[in-house]
């Protein structure tokens, strides 16, 4: 069994017992444990079920590469699925639950899939689409949906807090193993500022579990000394629990800091923090990841990597089992065997797929009297939920069993893969190294920064320097290179003496036995989390999936949450063997961020609930809120849709507001309209290019309705342009278009017409803009006093500036409602004061505020268009009968040439018309299709669609506008609007002007 061993456990504080639960069972661990080590110490070897076949699974690794031990943590608003137990630092009170089983972990009903493995071959998902036809819907989809997914999705909103942190650092060292620590130390010594990040909760990496000596002391002690020096150094910053998850252009790095322990201890209110680092130089010291060997039953709980077993033993004092069989193709498993033996545990045999080996570790094993079997492999591991024995076989051959060896754990090593993920994220190339049996960064094609210089250096095992003395040499070289790049004063690198240890050569065998039968192959797992077996790879390659990218997608090899950290290379080796090619030719799949999964919360950061998206508010927002506003989002703003009085429906309120404005006096907050000042000697000329109509002929003190098209001729914004002074214009835009129009003008000015002398300034927020509309609006302005707003002095489309009610104001006589109307802009600071004065003074005239819906009803009654209703990005002004606003005299304006295309002048283009219902008070559905000649299957009879539709309280009937093919020739004709399969409304086409077509009211 797996149990705690008293004489090991470097990271533990045995005085601090922590309690936690697993599947409801109370268990204990110590401070310093990971959830994984604590579970293993409690002999919890079975920790999860596999994705497809629901096979029992145990720990394979001790770190981020763990494929099996995914768990759900916490409950309620703190529930988080799919956490790898090997990366969770134990704290008091953790509630962990295993995943992916129907029923209990021990008795999983889904395990039945295991016996139907034949119906889940490689590509089974795609095959289920093929035939028989009915099977996908009725058989496969329900089964797959039921089986799919790992942990459950949380059912409650996340209670934790997350945030971002932006920082600029000079040198970032990623990984605090021996290489990373040494590189940090040496770089800091030369005065450089270094930030060292480490994904684990301790520094030292695999070296912390190793046994060699440095400078005459055991390596853990030596690492500890370096750590102390770094902590004391002013120019070093160390971040533990920090995973670099992605490297991007120009030294931009995203990392995730896990603050769960600090949060539990009350030291942080943040759970995960997403770091966005701008670096000048990145040093990758990400180490290497040990690979499994492939043999039948290599997924049975109790089979783990030799490095994991060594970590569990050395760092946490946990044994993998009492009797451990070792199987390896290199020396690193020897080290684990020696340690387990020295701990008093039994190592019945070391199975070595090599023909022979030599070196110091070999000598130690031999002197201990441990049995070594060369040129052998494992035919099969016996056991279901726990290893019971292994069957020894010859490496060559089909796997006939030579001997059955009882054991309760198996540790394996299939060699090491350098952790080159981050190198690849930003374009670094990889090359396969046959001798070291791994992909390595190709220094001749490294990621480059904005100056075309390398910004990533790689040290230690990540660069192929696997042995301690190589690490020291390699770090020395890289540090010198960086010192040169940063032009630091020369500092001699420390002389470090490494205990000389001779290691035997590794070989590249990755599965046993070499001639494994199909039956054995179907139990040989390559990818644990996604249940990809050698037999699946065989089938896929046989079916023609010979590209590594296809193989991945067809078999799901490397597609799980661990992204193939353990499985990719073994899969590639198989593919290369099958195709008879070199691994370099086969290539590898693309590594993409994130290196390890991170929480969705950390990506969202603080942008949740009220902070999800900015809401813009006018100066009158609070007033609206206090006076019954029902809000409508417009752009980022909130505008009152209508002001509800007691017991009033929205429809009633809109109707009341329209009627009151038409008959007496209405007031509207129009502050959200964009206001852009364009000023300079070339302003008139510039605006002639921006707008379709002529702006340069506008007189000072006058307003003109203007249209803006994009370069394809399509209408995208409209508004009133005012000439404030000879060289200064005020351009009004739509609410949603304000920022876009401002950027649009700036872009054309900066890139195309940069020689025009204009300044463009967005002053939208400087003004509170208020519309006073209705037959009594002039009376109100006169009562407010200060400006002559008589018919003679302020004609339609005139503009005046002065003081109204003793507040500095601009008055524009423009109307979007069709009533006599004035828009008044006052500086924002005085907005509320002015609004309240208007209401107070206007009460004698029956003033009442109106919202956006009343505004829209009134403009529709008048047939005025709305950007976004009557336009959809494919509409030109001419379609909307606005051809009069498109200048024919101007030599150029944006959209002019596009509008000369034949298509734009097609008489069949859709044209804006009005629709009136015959004998019905029903509202026409917005967006509905308009047809002539009845519903037909092919939709050939569709001639357009409804763009705006309202019930007009003024006319007491529904009105609508529509864009109809050849609309001009349809006037007076009857058309149909299908509402649903039963109902078809009949309407008459009219001019899109329903009320006061002559404009007598607004021109009063």
């Amino acid at each position, binding site marked *: 069994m797996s149990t705690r061993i008293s004489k090991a456990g470097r990271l533990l504080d045995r005085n601090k017992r922590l309690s936690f639960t697993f599947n409801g069972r109370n268990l204990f661990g110590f401070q310093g444990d990971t959830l994984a080590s604590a579970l293993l110490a409690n002999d919890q070897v079975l920790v999860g079920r596999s994705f497809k076949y629901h096979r029992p699974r145990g720990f394979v690794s001790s770190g981020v590469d763990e494929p099996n031990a995914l768990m759900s943590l916490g409950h309620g608003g703190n529930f988080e699925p799919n956490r790898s137990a090997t990366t969770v630092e134990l704290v008091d009170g953790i509630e962990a639950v295993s995943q992916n089983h129907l029923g209990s972990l021990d008795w999983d009903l889904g395990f039945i899939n295991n016996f139907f493995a034949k119906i889940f071959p490689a590509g089974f998902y795609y095959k289920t689409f093929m035939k028989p036809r009915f099977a996908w819907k009725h058989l496969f989809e329900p089964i797959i949906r039921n089986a799919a997914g790992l942990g459950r999705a949380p059912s409650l909103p996340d209670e934790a807090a997350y*945030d971002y942190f932006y920082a*600029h650092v000079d040198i970032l060292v990623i990984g605090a193993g021996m290489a990373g620590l040494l590189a940090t130390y040496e770089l800091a010594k030369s005065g450089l500022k270094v930030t060292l990040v480490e994904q684990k909760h301790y520094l030292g990496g695999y070296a912390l579990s190793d046994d060699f000596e440095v400078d005459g002391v055991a390596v853990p002690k030596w690492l500890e000394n370096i750590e102390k020096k770094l902590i004391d150094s002013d120019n070093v910053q160390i971040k533990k629990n920090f995973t670099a998850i992605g490297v991007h252009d120009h030294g931009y790095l995203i990392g995730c800091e896990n603050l769960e322990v600090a949060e539990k201890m009350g030291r942080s209110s943040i759970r995960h923090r997403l770091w966005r680092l701008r670096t000048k130089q990145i040093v990758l010291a990400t180490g290497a990841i040990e690979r499994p060997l492939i043999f039948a039953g290599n997924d049975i709980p109790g089979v783990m990597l030799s490095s994991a077993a060594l970590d569990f033993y050395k760092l946490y004092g946990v044994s993998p089992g009492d009797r451990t069989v070792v199987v390896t193709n290199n020396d690193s498993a020897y080290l684990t065997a020696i340690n387990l033996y020295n701990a008093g545990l039994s190592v019945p045999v070391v199975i070595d797929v090599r023909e022979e080996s030599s070196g110091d570790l070999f000598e130690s094993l031999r002197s201990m009297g441990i049995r070594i079997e060369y040129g052998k492999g494992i035919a099969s591991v016996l056991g279901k939920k726990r290893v019971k024995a292994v069957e020894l076989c010859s490496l060559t051959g089909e796997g006939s069993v030579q001997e059955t060896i009882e054991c309760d754990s198996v540790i394996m090593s299939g060699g090491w893969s350098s952790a080159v993920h981050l190198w690849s994220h930003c374009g670094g190339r990889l090359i396969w190294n046959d001798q070291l049996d791994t992909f390595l960064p190709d220094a001749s094609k490294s990621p480059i920064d904005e100056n075309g210089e390398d910004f990533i250096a790689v040290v230690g095992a990540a660069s192929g320097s696997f042995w301690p003395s190589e690490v020291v040499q390699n770090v020395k070289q890289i540090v010198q290179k960086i010192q040169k790049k940063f032009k630091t004063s020369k500092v001699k690198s420390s002389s470090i003496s490494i205990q000389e240890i001779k290691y035997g050569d590794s070989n590249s065998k990755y599965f046993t036995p070499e001639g494994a039968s199909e039956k054995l192959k179907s139990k040989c797992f390559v990818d644990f989390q996604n249940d990809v077996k050698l037999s699946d790879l065989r089938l896929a390659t046989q079916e023609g999936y010979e590209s590594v990218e296809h193989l991945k997608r067809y078999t799901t090899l490397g597609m799980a949450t661990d992204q193939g950290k353990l499985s990719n290379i073994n899969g590639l080796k198989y593919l290369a063997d099958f195709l008879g090619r070199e691994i370099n030719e086969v290539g590898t799949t693309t590594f993409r961020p994130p290196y390890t999964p991170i929480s969705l919360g950390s990506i969202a950061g*603080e942008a949740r609930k009220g902070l999800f998206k900015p809401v813009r508010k006018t100066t009158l927002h609070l007033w609206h809120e206090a006076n019954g506003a029902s809000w409508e989002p417009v752009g980022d703003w909130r505008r009152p849709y209508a002001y509800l009085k007691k017991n009033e429906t929205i429809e009633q309120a809109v109707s009341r507001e329209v009627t009151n404005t038409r008959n007496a006096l209405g007031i509207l907050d129009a502050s959200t309209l964009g206001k852009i000042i364009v000023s300079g000697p070339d302003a008139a000329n510039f605006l002639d290019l921006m707008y379709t109509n002529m702006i340069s002929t506008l007189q000072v003190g006058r307003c003109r309705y203007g249209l803006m098209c994009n370069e394809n001729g399509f209408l995208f914004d409209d508004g009133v342009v005012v000439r404030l002074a000879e060289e200064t214009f005020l351009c009004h835009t739509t609410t949603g278009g304000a920022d876009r129009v401002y950027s649009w003008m700036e872009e054309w000015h900066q890139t195309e017409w940069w020689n025009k002398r204009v300044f463009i300034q967005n002053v939208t927020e400087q003004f509170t803009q208020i519309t006073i509309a209705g037959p009594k609006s002039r009376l109100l302005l006169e009562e407010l006093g200060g400006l002559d707003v008589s018919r003679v002095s302020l004609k339609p489309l005139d503009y005046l500036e002065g003081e109204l009610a003793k507040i500095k104001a601009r008055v524009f006589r423009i109307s979007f409602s069709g009533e006599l109307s004035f828009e008044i802009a006052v500086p924002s600071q005085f907005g509320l004061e002015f609004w309240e004065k208007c209401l107070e003074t206007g009460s004698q005239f029956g003033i009442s505020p109106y919202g956006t819906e009343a505004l829209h009803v009134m403009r529709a009654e008048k047939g005025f268009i709305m950007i976004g209703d009557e336009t959809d990005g494919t509409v030109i002004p001419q379609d909307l009968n606005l051809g009069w606003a498109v200048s024919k005299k101007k030599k150029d304006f944006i959209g002019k040439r596009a509008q000369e295309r034949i298509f734009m002048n097609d008489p069949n283009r859709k044209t804006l018309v009005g629709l009136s219902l015959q004998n019905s008070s029903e509202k026409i559905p917005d967006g509905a299709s308009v047809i002539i000649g009845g519903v037909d299957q092919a939709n050939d009879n569709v001639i357009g669609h409804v763009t705006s539709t309202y019930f007009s309280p003024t006319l007491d009937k529904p009105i609508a506008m529509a864009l109809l093919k050849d609309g001009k020739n349809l006037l007076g004709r009857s058309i149909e609007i299908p509402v649903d399969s039963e109902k078809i409304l009949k309407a008459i086409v009219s001019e899109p002007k329903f009320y006061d077509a002559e404009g007598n009211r607004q021109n009063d």
Partner: protein
Amino acid sequence: MMLKVTGKMIEVRKYNSKDIRIKELGGVPMLTVRGDLSNKRFQTIIAKTCDVRIPKPLNIKSSKNLSLAWMSPDELLIFSFSGAFHEKTQKGLDSALKGLHSLILDVSGARSLFLVEGILWRELLAKGSPVDVRQSSFAKDAFRRTRIGQVSVAFWMASDNSVYIICGRSHSDFFYDWLCNAASDGSLTKYF
């Protein structure tokens, strides 16, 4: 540097956490001045009218009566320390710059001003802004136009332990909430 507004600045609202004090301040008049900052005549007129030379790019400078911030190669922002001086400056610039392609606009109502105080103010900025706020890059007189979270802002140091931030007025409620959240207890760790 501090905006030495005569009389008391209006304190619109405030929030204190363990590490940070946040205030929204009102009543600081602002002027936008557009013009070619490299033009000698323009430089002279600014220096004469404002009693301070145009600051270097990404900087802010103050005289007795105002602070002058570099916004872009053709834009300045003036924070006046009194309403009277604000009007005087606007009028002065209007007449002095006549004939020179330029634009002077009163933008006193267009922006909201916040003062964030406390030793962890750099950390607070770093939660939302990609600007390099290390002491070595962002010190006294530095002025940055950037974003914090999803809001466009500009900020500069008020003192060693405080920073001014301006944002568009319509965003001030949202931004205030953002600041309070970022300042909340337990969410700031000493970094700089």
